[in-house]
């Protein structure tokens, strides 16, 4: 049924740290790898070695430049995958029941055998988290690596989403956001975790941790107490360069 559950027992999701993400795209690659080799239709590429390559990805990293009122601009890398919204508009629009939100853990999934590829759910998602696979002609989206997190065949350390496991700067955290004592909930509370596009009313489960304030070296007058001693002694060239300078001036 594409009606949403009135509540979910847990809210599994990601907390993404915009302060520590270095924009390496490792999560993009590991997500593509895991989700091509495991559950569901593989994430295809079109014209991958040609002039106009494109392909299906469930996770993408944008980069933004943020210019404060005064001082230097700041670069923020911004990973974006499905936010597993509580009030998911992508689910209710689906005519076939292929899209659904699970009552037990809140994960939003697509049953690829029922999807007619109408694309309406991708229109309804404000975050661009759904992409139609051009080869399989079905809708693909982040599964929260549902085939890893409950997978007893994997070592326990690997029972987290591929993107979380791979991130070299620990910018992606996985956990239950309905439990106020979970690590992710405490991280959100400590760092002021936020919703994207709150005005769209989607009530996303995933939270984003804003970048911490940066040092403002460009705004401090004295860079170093030793700076006065490092001031240039003379601006005039000496020796051979000095002679050359004078000789050229005379010409």
């Amino acid at each position, binding site marked *: *049924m*594409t*009606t*949403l559950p009135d509540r979910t027992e847990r809210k599994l999701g990601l907390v993404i740290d*915009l302060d520590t993400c270095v924009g390496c*795209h490792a999560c993009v690659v590991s997500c593509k790898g895991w989700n091509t080799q495991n559950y569901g239709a593989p994430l295809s590429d079109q014209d991958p070695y040609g002039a*106009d390559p*494109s*392909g*299906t*990805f469930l996770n*993408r*990293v*944008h*980069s*933004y*430049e*943020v*210019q*404060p*009122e005064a001082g230097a*601009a*700041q*670069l923020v890398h*911004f990973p*974006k995958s499905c936010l597993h919204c509580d009030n998911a*508009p992508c*689910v209710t*629009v*689906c*005519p*076939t*029941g*292929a899209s659904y939100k699970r009552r037990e853990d809140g994960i939003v999934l697509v049953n690829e055998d*029922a*999807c*007619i*590829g*109408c694309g*309406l759910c*991708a*229109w*309804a*998602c*404000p*975050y*661009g988290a759904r*992409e*139609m696979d051009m080869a399989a*002609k*079905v809708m693909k989206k982040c599964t929260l690596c549902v085939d890893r997190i409950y997978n007893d065949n994997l070592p326990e350390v690997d029972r987290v989403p591929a993107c979380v496991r791979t991130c070299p700067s620990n910018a992606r955290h996985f956990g239950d956001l309905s439990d106020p004592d979970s690590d992710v909930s405490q991280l959100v509370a400590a760092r002021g975790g936020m*919703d*994207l*596009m*709150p*005005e*769209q*009313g989607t009530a996303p489960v995933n939270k984003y941790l*804003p*970048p911490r304030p940066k040092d403002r070296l460009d705004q401090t007058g004295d860079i170093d107490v030793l700076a006065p001693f490092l001031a240039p002694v003379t601006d005039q060239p000496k020796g051979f360069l000095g002679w050359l300078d004078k000789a050229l001036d005379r010409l």
Partner: protein
Amino acid sequence: MHPAPSIIAFTTLSGLGFGLMVWLGIGMPGSTGIVAFVFFAIAYALAGGGLIASAFHLGHPERGLLAFTQWRSSWLSREAICAVATLAVMAAYAIGRVFLATDWVPLGWLGAALALGTVFTTSMIYAQMKTVPRWRSPLTPALFLCLSLGGGALLAGQVSWALILLPLAGILQLAWWWQGDRAFAASGTTMASATGLGGIGSVRAFEPPHTGPNYLLREMVHVVGRKHAVKLRAIAFVFGYVLPVALLLLPFAHVFGLLAVISHVAGILASRWLFFAEAEHVVGLYYGKR
């Protein structure tokens, strides 16, 4: 949004076809026999042709029957049910009018109501989209319904009704354009709210996540066609509304009626093209585009 020819053809033609069915269902005109056959055939060609065109848009049309199951939440599912119910009820009604020269009035009215319901559910697929502020307005169903009834009256030869409904649809069209041009700003969704970084300063897209195109950009961030929007609006308005009304006001001749229909369809196709090409999806903000 990407102006897919299949969806433009579908919404325009089936809107007209279902509009014609409304008039046929309430017995205006109440012709029987071969004349009724021609009217019903035109209505079915338009409505059914539109539906077939829309099926081309699907990745897996062979699973189409599943689209009838989610009417509790999905406007697309409701549309599918209404459309098929209309075609079935009107077919039974048409048998009475064409072959038996009888008018099963309640059946006709039921078919007319279902036909209107189909147009309404189609319009709600767009009007429900919070992600496309230009579409999310009560004016969207109002415009679709009025256009369908006006165009249907034109096809059904209900000149006096067409002379009321087409100017009304023209006014709704202008109002829809006017509110649509302000809708994105009024929605409150900006790059600042999309990234949550607005508190630090002004946000600019520095580098996109991918160097090539992708599904999102192709489907949702269609900016190329917009530069001719003003010219196309003028064309849509003159051909879709002004010219048909002017032709209907001339002393009656079949050729003028035919010209009015052709001009109307051409104008509405242009308007529908703009309906998609000018619609800005909020996901464009993540790419620093509109």
